[in-house]
């Protein structure tokens, strides 16, 4: 138990320099034109003077660069992300977006794990069968296509041609789809979730299949069979437990990648989440907003990684010793 705690602390400590690294990179980009204000001016012709004044204070433009960085970092940690060009504080804008993005991401993650693992195991047990080829083929297509493009295709088919599902937003503005507010929310969730799930599934199925094939060759599986354990026990309790640990890592990284990929998917569906906001903010050079979103997403990714590490340690205790 003690070594488990030490392991968690070690992982936590690792996250700190990573966070700092991202902070430095973000800060560096924001100051690429000397200071963020210059950058904003490069994008906007007539910025709001009141906002500019607020930002000048926030960024402590009268200080040398390294002090500015420390002030900014200090503000960050205390949740002060400054004021966006719209005049509103960044933090208050980010909260609703965060939930909207998470709703999509987490739902897809859960679905892709719940579907992906059994399908991958099935595929590995029926290697070379027609079903296996079909599954593997679908998986390869899945991670060969840009996620958002699949979204566009589905929009064209299901929304524009067939009119079965809505194509944008998270909720309808005027008339609730399918006549009910909850159903409306559900209807809007279907397409983006389907797209994200399919692409995540592709990776998970392939990995589970590959790992299971590898693990099932091992001596301890043969030994388990030699002890009379049923095929089901051998597959799901003995083999899967061993096969799953690299998959846990990949899922963690995949979640991070999905979060990072949110801009494209959300833009496609006009899904009002962090990704969509990021894109808009970057295009309009709303630097405080962009920086704020980047930091928030980074923090979420780091938390996801920590959770992954914890789950990994639980599954494969060998890692604690290193």
């Amino acid at each position: 138990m003690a070594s488990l705690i030490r392991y968690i602390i070690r992982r936590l400590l690792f996250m700190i320099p990573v966070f700092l690294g991202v902070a430095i990179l973000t800060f560096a980009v924001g100051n690429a034109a000397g200071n963020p204000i210059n950058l904003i001016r490069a994008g906007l012709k007539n910025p709001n003077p009141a906002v500019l004044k607020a930002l000048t204070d926030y960024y402590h433009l009268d200080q040398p660069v390294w002090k500015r960085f420390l002030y900014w970092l200090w503000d960050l940690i205390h949740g002060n992300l400054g004021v966006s060009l719209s005049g509103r504080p960044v933090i208050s804008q980010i909260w609703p977006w965060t939930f909207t993005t998470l709703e999509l991401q987490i739902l897809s993650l859960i679905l892709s794990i719940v579907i992906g693992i059994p399908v991958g195991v099935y595929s590995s047990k029926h290697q070379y069968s027609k079903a296996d080829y079909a599954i593997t083929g679908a998986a390869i297509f899945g991670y060969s296509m840009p996620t958002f493009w699949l979204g566009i295709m589905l929009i064209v088919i299901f929304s524009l041609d067939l009119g079965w599902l809505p194509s944008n937003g998270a909720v309808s503005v005027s008339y609730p789809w399918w006549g009910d507010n909850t159903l409306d929310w559900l209807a809007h969730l279907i397409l983006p979730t389907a797209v994200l799930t399919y692409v995540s599934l592709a990776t998970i199925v392939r990995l589970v299949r590959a790992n299971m094939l590898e693990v099932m060759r091992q001596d301890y599986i043969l030994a388990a069979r030699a002890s009379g354990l049923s095929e089901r026990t051998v597959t799901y309790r003995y083999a899967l437990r061993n096969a799953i640990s690299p998959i846990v890592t990949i899922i963690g990284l995949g979640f991070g990648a999905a979060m990072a990929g949110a801009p494209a998917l959300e833009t496609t569906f006009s899904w009002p989440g962090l990704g969509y906001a990021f894109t808009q903010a970057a295009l309009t050079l709303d630097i405080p907003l962009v920086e704020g979103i980047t930091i928030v997403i980074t923090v979420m990714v780091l938390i996801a990684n920590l959770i992954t590490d914890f789950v990994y340690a639980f599954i494969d205790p060998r890692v604690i010793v290193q």
Partner: protein
Amino acid sequence: MTDYLTPSTRDSVNEWAHRLPEKLLEISNLRTYFFTEAGVVKALDGMSLEVNKGQAVGLVGESGSGKSVTAQSVLRIVPRPGRIVAGSIKFEGEDLLSKSDDDMRKLRGPKMAIVFQDPTTSLNPVFTVERQLTDILMLHRDLTKEAASKRALSLLERVGIQEPEKRLKAYPHELSGGMKQRIAIARALSCEPILLFADEPTTNLDVTIQAQVLELLKQLQKELNMTMVMITHDMGIIADMTERVTVLYAGKVMEVADTPTLFHSPKHPYTEALLKAVPSVKQTRALEVIPGNIPNLIEPPSGCVFNPRCKYAKDICMKQEPPLEEVEEEHYVACHFWRELKLEGRAG
């Protein structure tokens, strides 16, 4: 473990035992092939073996001779792409090949078990020692978790592990090679099987530990009155542990005899070569190495499968496969020239 019997019970058991088939395991003309991308690998190609109750029998040959596949075939856990294609396996008089998988599973553990070669890979790395033992006990003996744990503890004591309570909760990677193999033995014996296959159980261990583990196996075999098939490439272990031995090469039987007979008067060139390759402190001549490599099992040599490496080979050896012939009682050999050849055995 097994309580010793009271005199009256012992008599009835003896009477009943006499009516049991003497032969515990009868393998006859077994062919196990592996259907790989590169071709069909004939791992066992007409192999026969007979083991009597309570015997310690050896199965010797180089790697690739099919020794491990024999054990896997009997338990019917031959991994894909392998399959038993022909032959028969009888255990306690019953035909194993016609049994359903469910019935076989009831035998694996309580009736027959395998101790594998490398304990590092034969123990599941993500489960504690306790879990690996209790899973089996709870399955076959219908015990509760606590009862199974207690039993697991006594099993560890039985195989000579110090501080068994600590080891029970440990993971395999925390233990030494010798300890892991003892645990693997404990696992194999957990349901008191009648037949135990020991597949190169000491090959991956340090020399000093090897002797301990072999001693342990000998002890357990006597105590539990188990029938043991010792699979190895080491003639020294054969001499030490077995009463009867079968020599296997490229999936076929070369010679079968009682151990002393095999050592003193081998009748097959391969056996002679194996004996010559074992060093001994007294010898003064150089070690003789068997030339060549193990044959390609996809396209084995025609005729006698050993002919490319046999220093006595003649024309007929490349054309005709020699049948297994009786030399004397309980001594069989598959060689065209066993009558003519004067082969060197070993004295001690």
